[in-house]
């Protein structure tokens, strides 16, 4: 049985719905801006890891169908990454471009975080059927940018952590497994994917 696309769409929007609901009910804590930034960043990272899990899962017997969710997961990753970036620009810095520029130059976790977004941007733009057709075989090459983007996202997480490395380390391990699987497969099979 196939789950219809709108269901996945609603599922992808549900974290945002929860965030809005928390905001209305005063559940964002003492520092709501920080909460929103953390929340959207977490979901962007999780959806990035979910996007990268789809190809390996699709190889499992009877799971081929999940491959059609890869684009949606990737787009939702970009959606939450955009929310993450915008909450920093608007809520945290309130368009203070001087401060934002200084942050970009001086604070490695911001430089790295922003670079991650810049890598995801062309992937989101070229996710449509038209672009897939237009780019042909280059589409796949372009979309390998998701690997450096994921590595940078993990670096961003590590760089903003002060002392408790457990959560960033767990995410790094998950990414290492996902990249390791691809590396192994590339060695044993010459097919791209």
């Amino acid at each position: 049985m196939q789950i219809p696309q709108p269901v996945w769409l609603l599922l992808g929007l549900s974290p945002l719905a929860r965030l809005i609901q928390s905001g209305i009910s005063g559940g964002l804590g003492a520092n709501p801006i920080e909460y929103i930034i953390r929340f959207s960043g977490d979901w962007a990272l999780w959806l990035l890891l979910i996007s990268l899990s789809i190809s390996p899962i699709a190889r499992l017997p009877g799971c081929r169908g999940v491959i059609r969710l890869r684009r949606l997961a990737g787009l939702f990753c970009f959606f939450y990454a955009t929310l993450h970036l915008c909450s920093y620009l608007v809520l945290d810095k309130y368009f203070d471009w001087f401060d934002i520029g200084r942050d970009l130059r001086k604070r490695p976790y911001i430089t790295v975080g922003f670079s991650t977004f810049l890598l995801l941007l062309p992937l989101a733009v070229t996710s449509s059927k038209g672009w897939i057709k237009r780019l042909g075989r280059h589409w796949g090459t372009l979309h390998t940018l998701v690997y450096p983007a994921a590595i940078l996202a993990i670096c961003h997480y590590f760089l903003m952590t002060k002392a408790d490395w457990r959560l960033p380390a767990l995410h790094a391990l998950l990414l290492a497994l996902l990249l390791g699987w691809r590396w192994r497969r590339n060695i044993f099979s010459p097919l791209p994917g």
Partner: protein
Amino acid sequence: MPFRWNPELTAMDVTPEIFFQQRRQFIQQSALLGAGVALGGIAPAVSLAEPGEPLTNVQKGVVTLDEPVTPFKDASSYTNFYELGSGKEEPARYGDRLQTDPWHVVIEGEVNRPGRWSLADLLKPHPLEERVYRLRCVEAWSMVIPWIGFPLKGLLERFEPTAKARYVAFETIHDPSRLPGQAQNMLDWPYREGLRLDEALHPLTILAVGMYGRVLPNQNGAPLRLVVPWKYGFKSIKSIVRITLTENQPPTSWNQQAPTEYGFYANVNPAVDHPRWDQSKERRIGEFLRRPTLPFNGYQTQVASLYQGMDLSKNF
């Protein structure tokens, strides 16, 4: 002489509604306590009180501030206390893991009267005062908190520092079997902080046992914590079990963790940048736009003389 900047009464001097409503309860409890003392010589209020209980016999308005006090809910739910977890909300969630009774404090090092004191005996001679201070975290957020405590100076002088004493080192309780954060190797436990002796003796430096009229919640550093309002919050060490007077500058936890980020002095200084956070501005909890950070967190006229001739960008 109490020292104040705002001798006029302000809106902040108004008794909070909750205390007004509970005034009869205060009186009853004071009366009961008085009876207890008369009957059996029970120790003063502090040693009897559980976290969150109202504190009595507090001299109000010793230091006031013309800025709105941060709501208690925010000050008690948004805290850094890695012993109870590295998140902001975890310390409140795991607060009950910290056992504050019985509590002892060791005073040692360069003092003529070293010893190990029960909390009650340690606090007994010190009348409690309410002081409203700004709290500026190195993470660029800030609060305004009505602390209840007493000057550290009075306590240190009781134990007679020797001529060799130049620094004061503090240590937080170490209890990895109970405190979830201490079961992890996040910091080199126990948490340590330190002050130069003249900073420790400054009249703004206090030991706090309460806030918002009540005994400190565990996540805010019960039963005894330091408050140094012109320094970043991590200097104001919580749940103190050891105070050591030393000749040499003591090691301090965050400085050991990342010496390029956290200095020994850690004076609030908008002119000294931090690799992670823009220190020229801060977000006051409850406000949207960041406000400019003041040198020495607004206590420049009181404390700047302590650092005369020092390069504060080197001694950050």
